[in-house]
């Protein structure tokens, strides 16, 4: 069996570091928004909190070994990609629903489009490291 790299080593080290930066900043930002001015844009701020949660889960799951963490990471990164595409598209056509910026607004333009690139790299990396753990597509042994 050819050795796939571990998820948290090699390029994964860098990827998880960038995820951690987003997890930290999104969490802090959402906390401030909700604590200080939730009434101004509840939908946008709830979305901020949701995005923060997705980044936190993705960071932790990518960093931890094991097939379960891999599945969690895959789910989180997929949700992240859908989130940035959906919110990006909605805000591009009708910014009215989101009066205040979220990390995913306009495909993450406020963050140098890193939020758009990150889930793609995350999915690619999960693919590269697939054989490092038991294949999740196989039914579990009983």
């Amino acid at each position, binding site marked *: 069996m050819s050795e796939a790299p571990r998820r948290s*080593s*090699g*390029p*994964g*080290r*860098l990827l*998880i*570091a*960038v995820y*951690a*930066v987003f997890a*930290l*900043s999104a969490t*802090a*930002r959402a*906390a*401030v928004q909700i*604590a*200080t001015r939730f009434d101004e844009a509840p939908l946008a701020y709830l979305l901020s909190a949701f995005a923060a949660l997705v980044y936190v889960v993705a960071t932790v799951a990518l960093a931890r070994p094991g097939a379960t963490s891999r599945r969690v990471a895959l789910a989180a990164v997929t949700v992240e990609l859908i989130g940035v595409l959906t919110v990006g598209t909605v805000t591009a056509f009708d910014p009215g629903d989101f009066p205040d910026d979220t990390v995913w607004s306009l495909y993450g333009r406020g963050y140098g489009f890193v939020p758009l690139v990150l889930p793609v790299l995350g999915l690619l990396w999960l693919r590269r490291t697939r054989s490092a753990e038991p294949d999740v597509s196989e039914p579990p042994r009983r």
Partner: protein
Amino acid sequence: MVAVVDWAVIVASLAYAAWALVAVVRNQAPREPYVIGAGVVELLILLQVVVAIVLMIGDGAPDETATFIGYLLMNLIIVPLGLFWALAEKSRWGTSVLVVAALVVPVLVVRMQQIWDAGAA
């Protein structure tokens, strides 16, 4: 905020990021000099935090106090966290984490300056 301190932090972190980037290009794992360099950057950040706290006590905090303090705290932990995550990886990818951590610092400083200049309460 005090411009001299801000610029010291910005220049130091950018220089550190560039230095670490050279090591990434040369395929070097993070080594001791980079730990010392990170310590120097962190000391400057600490100084900036102290200065900001003194100014806030003296002249009042900026309007977006919570956000400002959030940036201050994030700036304080980002380099040590990056170092911790970098040192366990004995390859160029470990060093690349130092580049990312160091590049977050000037972004946070510029955001803090914007909030500060927007007005004190």
